[in-house]
């Protein structure tokens, strides 16, 4: 139950983020991709802000935590390799039903 509450709140905050950043306006997304027209670089600021926060929080552990999480799940089911990617590692599937991060 707690897990679902966290997920719902995360979804809510995500929606507020999208609305505040202007990404709920298709015109702004088109304006970012339209580099030869009236270019609007706002979306780059959205990604910059999101990546900066997600990289730093929850602290310096952010990257290592997710690495451990991915590695600990590596022995279960793996997603299929990208069709062009023998050089990529096969990441664990998102569809595993258990989460081993806190076990």
């Amino acid at each position, binding site marked *: 139950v707690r*897990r*679902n509450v*966290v*997920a*719902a*709140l*995360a*979804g*809510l*905050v*995500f*929606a*507020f*983020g*999208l*609305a*505040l*950043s*202007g990404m*709920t*306006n*298709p*015109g*702004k997304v*088109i*304006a970012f*991709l339209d*580099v030869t*027209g*009236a270019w*609007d*670089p*706002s*979306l780059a*600021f*959205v*990604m*910059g*802000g*999101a*990546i900066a*926060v*997600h990289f730093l*929080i*929850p602290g310096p552990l*952010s*990257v290592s*935590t*997710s690495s451990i999480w991915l590695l600990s799940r590596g022995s279960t089911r793996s*997603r299929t390799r*990208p069709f062009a990617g023998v050089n*990529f590692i096969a*990441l664990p599937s*998102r*569809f*595993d*039903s258990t989460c*081993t*991060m*806190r076990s």
Partner: protein
Amino acid sequence: MPVAFTPIASLFGGALIGLSASALLALNGRIAGISGILGGLVNGDALDRGWRAAFLGGLLGGGVLVTLLFPAALQSSASSLPVGITVAAGLLVGLGTQLGGGCTSGHGVCGISRLSKRSLVATMTFMVVGALATFLVQHVVLRGAT
């Protein structure tokens, strides 16, 4: 149609998205990739559907709240296209995100934050192809139509 450049609002909006992704990863051990969360709801494990539905419920609920509280935030300045084109575009997004294993949130935000090379390549690919498609539609197809 020109739109206003909003660096501050977009930066803070992005920070909220990053906060949401961090909470989901730190507390639930999950990647906040919207396409993957939706994809898993449709064809994933039944045991896994609860939190996916909860996240998407929160996302849509947030959209409803914003509509009620700040209706101006959800105005669109894009020229409206026929419904058929929009449906076809949505199908292509679904196909592409499943084939590429993620979207702007999963690859662009979460993946690059984890320093994933795969996500960096995916993000650069869909940004470049998106810009090419936009050029074709905005400057070739739509100009030809008017």
